[in-house]
């Protein structure tokens, strides 16, 4: 297990929103779903697109801004056409008012789903 990396303060991202961060050579998308934070790869697995430019839909999914295909944020699973391959998730560690990410681990929900 590697050291968790600081991403941002919790109050920097409103509920229902997503933001991109470039950390440790990884482009990641960080999401605030009703106060719980998640992180996934930012690149869509279908075609060249940045998921953080998309919209959070159906409470827990991210819709890719290019073709509107969706992924389930907590597990990274593809939910609708044309998405077929899961996106990589990253475990988010809650540390007080900070959001930290462990780049070596998947999110708990994703690990259960595989």
């Amino acid at each position, binding site marked *: 297990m590697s050291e968790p990396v600081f991403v941002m303060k919790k109050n920097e991202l409103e509920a229902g929103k997503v933001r991109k961060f470039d950390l440790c050579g990884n482009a990641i998308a960080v999401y605030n779903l009703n106060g719980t934070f998640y992180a996934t790869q930012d690149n869509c697995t279908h075609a060249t697109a940045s998921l953080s430019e998309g*919209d959070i839909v159906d409470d827990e999914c991210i819709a890719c801004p290019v*073709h509107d295909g969706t992924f389930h944020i907590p597990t990274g699973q593809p939910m609708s056409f044309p998405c077929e391959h899961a996106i990589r998730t990253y475990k988010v560690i809650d540390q007080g008012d900070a959001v930290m990410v462990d780049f070596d681990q998947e999110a708990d929900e994703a690990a259960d789903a595989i």
Partner: protein
Amino acid sequence: MCTANDGSPVRLKRRPIAESVANLDRLMDLDKGRMSRDLFWDRDIYEQELERIFARCWLFVGHESQIPKAGDYVSTYMGEDNVLIVRQKDGSIKGFLNTCPHRGNKVCFADLGNARQFVCNYHGWAFGIDGGLKGMHASEAYEETGMDKAEHGLHPVAHIDSYRGLIFATLDPQAPTLAEYLGDMRHYLDAIFDMDEGGTEFVGGCVKSVIQCNWKYASENFVGDILHAGWTHDSGAKAMVGGSVAEVHKFPDQSYQVNFNGHGWEFNQDIVGNCATLGEKDLLKYLYVLQPKVAERHDDFRSRMIGAISSCTLFPNTSFLPGQNTFRTWHPRGPGQIELHTWTFVNKNAPQEIKDKWRKGTMMTFSPSGVFEMDDGENWEYSTRSNAGYVTRQQDLYLGLGQNSKLDTDLPGNVYRGQINEANQRAFYQRWLDLMKSESWKKVPQRDIPKMKEAL
């Protein structure tokens, strides 16, 4: 790539203007009230209308109230061009040709809705609501060829603007501004679309139908033909109000025709004459209560127009009826067919029951099942069709009612005494001829000098 008036590039290709149909001047002698039937039958004239009227003028494309949120869109037509009108994230409105720049497929098949993007069903070319190309199916293949996505977005309309909630667009980068185009007619539009600070909204959606007639029969009917109402619509009046259509020709000093740049409005000063045909006392009461407030906001003269016996056409093919509150566009589909799109407009601040009564009342009177509109279709269809006859179409038509009825007045626009008149129709066709003869907007004669200031 062509350029707008200010030199900015517009991603909309236009061919050089084609050669005109010969000798257009033979088509009318308006001083004598004479017109040729070729206007309603000839295919070459129709094709030239697509080029010099519909691809040049400001055309109605929607009401602001139809697209309140970012991503809201309506699919509509400019002439025979299908366009998408889309609300942007910053609140502005953009319009695009509804065709994929790849192989041409229609990009959006719905009439209206809310979208995060528009994706072509053929190869997955995906466009943002701003029209930009965001990606394609198997996009890596395109990336290898070095294609620049910025050059392959949806084609935007040349200009888009709105007046009092009514959105207009033009496909001609050289077009004058919307304010210049509407000119003095804006003075009168305020009587209906600016009765109070809330303005208007469309309610109830769009009712669409097809009529086998030339588009100009419909436009000219609404631009100045109240004469027909007393005869064509007798059955509708008997059905809704149990009596005949009001004999407005008996009181020519109480009504007017006004036109400007080919737009025309014929109207009475009776406040509620059109509204009365909906057979709903609550609507009359609503207008009577509103009228003095409109008088204060604008003036007494305009306040008496708010539901009066009247009709208006905004050149070339958008019309409405105050009082019945129907708003419509007659989309050309060849010289012998139109697709009619109608909506109901109401004041935003009106109580919900009043809005519901208008939505219902418009359908009852002016829709394909409307007791008034039902008799119009046949008149226009057979006026058009009779010209299949080779000798028939060589005979002249007459449009000479109300010659020498122009009034000398400070009122904006060209004003004529008495709504039973054909002055507006003559002005409509004069504008038509001017546009058909001109190779560009710069060459179109400006016959009507505005009395209103340009800036709003």
